[in-house]
């Protein structure tokens, strides 16, 4: 086990190096120039050259790459260039991370809370109408893109609903169409409504598939034969066996907490990692783009490892050499 973990850790620097190199190359060789964006209307060639030199963008690619890596290893992820000139990228990310993590955690929690029971019901009612309804519902939920459903929800709950409730009840019951006042405020409701269906669908589908397989096993027949009540059969015997893929999804879901929901944060104006990333992309603010990409890659690699290790606890038959 220890040898396995060490071997996995060995891959960290290689993967992170690859991610950094590709991201930087895409940035530097893609269209658009951060110095030009920074200067905007004042981007005469002389000033652009001055700012590029000041930022080290006139250096050869490999020099920029290795300087970045050397600094990053020591925890210095440089400063924002264009969007928040001079501010440390680590500070910018730290300020936004709580927003993104809390919003995604809410969505993930709702996904588990609704998805797993729906999947269980679906599996128990396999191929009956309730199963079809649930399947249709969750697939629709995941198939409708966020950018299509968000404005619609804003229209209903932030614009139309308040008129209706005021006329009917004399008070306004409406949700803010955007902004952010914390995960426990009304401003979190619409984003959570948009973000959680994806999680619900994944958990429901996976639970259903795992349960259908588990319920067909011999030991389930045995459990029923010895007279166990159906709820115990389902929950204790079948569900435990269906748990492994759910842990994988949950682990990757945890990793996804730090990556911003780019579209959702943009549509609702939520000041999280996603909005920071979009702003940085538009401004060609490479240090921010690099740091966010590396952070997300790092967390995914780590959570993958943790998930793999967690398997051994859930299923003692799994062993790593």
């Amino acid at each position, binding site marked *: 086990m220890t040898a396995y973990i060490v071997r996995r850790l060995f891959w960290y620097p290689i993967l992170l190096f690859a991610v950094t190199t590709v991201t930087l190359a895409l940035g530097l060789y893609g269209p658009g120039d951060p110095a030009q964006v920074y200067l905007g209307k004042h981007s005469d060639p002389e000033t652009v050259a001055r700012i590029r030199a000041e930022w080290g963008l006139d250096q050869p690619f490999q020099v920029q790459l290795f300087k970045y890596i050397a600094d990053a290893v020591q925890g210095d992820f440089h400063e924002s260039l264009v969007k928040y000139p001079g501010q440390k990228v680590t500070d910018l990310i730290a300020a936004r991370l709580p927003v993104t993590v809390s919003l995604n955690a809410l969505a993930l929690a709702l996904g588990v809370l609704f998805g797993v029971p729906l999947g269980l019901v679906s599996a128990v009612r396999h191929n009956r109408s309730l199963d079809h309804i649930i399947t249709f519902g969750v697939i629709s939920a995941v198939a409708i893109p966020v950018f299509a459903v968000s404005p619609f929800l804003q229209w209903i709950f932030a614009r139309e609903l308040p008129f209706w409730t005021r006329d009917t009840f004399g008070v306004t019951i409406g949700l803010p169409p955007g902004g952010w*006042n914390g995960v426990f405020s009304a401003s979190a409701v619409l984003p959570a409504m948009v973000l959680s269906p994806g999680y619900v669908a994944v958990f429901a589908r996976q639970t259903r598939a795992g349960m259908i397989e588990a319920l067909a096993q011999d030991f389930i027949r045995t459990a029923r034969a010895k007279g166990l009540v159906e709820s115990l059969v389902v929950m204790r015997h079948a569900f435990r066996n269906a748990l492994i893929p759910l842990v994988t999804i949950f682990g990757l879901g945890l990793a996804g907490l730090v990556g911003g929901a780019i579209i959702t944060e943009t549509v609702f104006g939520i000041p999280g990692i996603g909005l920071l990333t979009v702003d940085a992309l538009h401004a060609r603010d490479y240090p921010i783009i690099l740091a966010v990409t590396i952070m997300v890659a790092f967390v995914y690699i780590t959570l993958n490892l943790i998930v793999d290790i967690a398997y051994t606890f859930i299923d003692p038959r799994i062993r790593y050499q």
Partner: protein
Amino acid sequence: MFKLKAFPVSPVVLLAFALLFSLGCALTEVATSSENTPASSAPTQSANRPAATPTRSGSTPRNTPAAAPAQPRSADELILPFIGGDPPTLDPAVAQDATSAEVIVEIYGGLVTIDKDLKIVPDLAESWTISDDKKTYTFKLRGDAKFHNGKAVTAQDFKYSIERAADPKTESPVADSYLGDIVGVREKLNRKATDVSGVKVVDDKTLAITIDAPKSYFLAKLTYPTAFVVDKANVDSGGRTWFLKPNGTGPYKLGSYNFGQQIVLTRNDIYYGTPKPQVKTVTLSISGGSFMTRYENGELDSTFVSIIDIDRVLDPTNALNKELTVAPQFSIDYIGFNVSKPPFDDPKVRQAFNMAIDKKTIAEVVLKKTAQPANGILPPKFPGFNDNLKGLTFDPDKAKQLIKDSKYGDVSKLPEITLNVSGGGGTAGPEMEAIVEMFKQNLGVDVQIQQQEFASFLQELNKRPNNLQMYSIGWIADYPDPQDFLDILFYGDSLDNHMSYNNPQVNKLLEAARIETDSKKRIDLYQQAEQIIVSDAAWIPLFVGDNYWLDKPYVKGLIHPPFVIPRLKYASIGR
């Protein structure tokens, strides 16, 4: 500054994007005022004056009386919406966007400033003299001016501040633009000098600044934050984010700043200027999206009105109508022609395209009066604005005739035409669609729209010469002088003239205006130049922005200026 639309998008997506913070702005104003934005910003040009990229908020009940309490919410605090999102910087030397400038002008000060009548007036300098060759300005500083911490402001502080702004390490994007006229600034920026030779400390309270040539608009440039005074000890204390604890001189101090939520400004009780700031605390609320709702709930004392709420606040029977202020902006949207590329190398074709657009209808129907049609280059009320300018007005018959009279002779002989716009959405925005439709209906010309996100658009635009035929963009005033529009955008060699427009007659007028000291004659020169430019049809001037604000009845003296100036000191809370 540049002004770009924040993400022109289809109507459905528009609602969604309407909620964006002025992303565009930022973009837009990258340069801009920035700007953009949604600037994108607008390219991120995200930058920008607020005018450019207002956040559009969602709305609430129509035609219901505002639930506004008649009494002030608080006797010593105003809560105002802050439209642009988090300011990119509060460092005066680095700021180039309206969002940043809006806060900076309240916290810091410079030698001169702009008052609410938009006149250039003394700020930290109480008076100045100009040498006979018009190149040296000698400023006498006020005796009573102090930083927030009580330290007196001296001429050395100004010398330090200007040299710091011109230090390449400061990475100021605008030092060349606003300070580049000062002898020695460009040398310092290019590491050829360690100090700025054109700035001399005569004594503690006297500062002499020498510029490279007589320029009547130089003082106007000093009203921009780049020339503001900062305290060396303050700058040295905090690394590159020293400005989060600024020691300025302005009417307000930075009380606290919660990222993404609010900026709290507190009254500077030792402020030297007049009027003295009255409201003890001004909270600028950043967390946006629902300013209008919060205003109607009495949580905000003022709000920007987005296009979706315009109809009901304009309705005279709505109680909100009495709280409405219309604030014209010093900004203009336009379509620029590349006069070196067919078919716009023929002025008749350019004039025909001008006359084919019914701007009035677009402004009223599509833009719902959030803009007014532009006749010339300078926005109304801007210094030098000419009421008698002869514009190219809507006349489809004459437009068709002009095409026939052109060297192309017929619509069918025109090459393919592409209109380049910046943006990140699916379509170029309803007003651009309306314009292209009018080209089709009134001229029979099919114009293709090509949309690029801001950074790529900017790269195309900045190629010299560029390959565009026509492009849509905007401009927001930096300082109140016609030079800021006419010379910068139309002078043959100007870096911001992307049209290859080079009219010797116009160049001559603009050169003469630069050094003319009689302000009436100077304005006259600019008006002549503007008339030629408009008749030449180098642009299609499209729209001048109109912003709508609501203020609670108890809020007194809060102004909504056409561009960024210090304004909070005029505000008070009444009954």
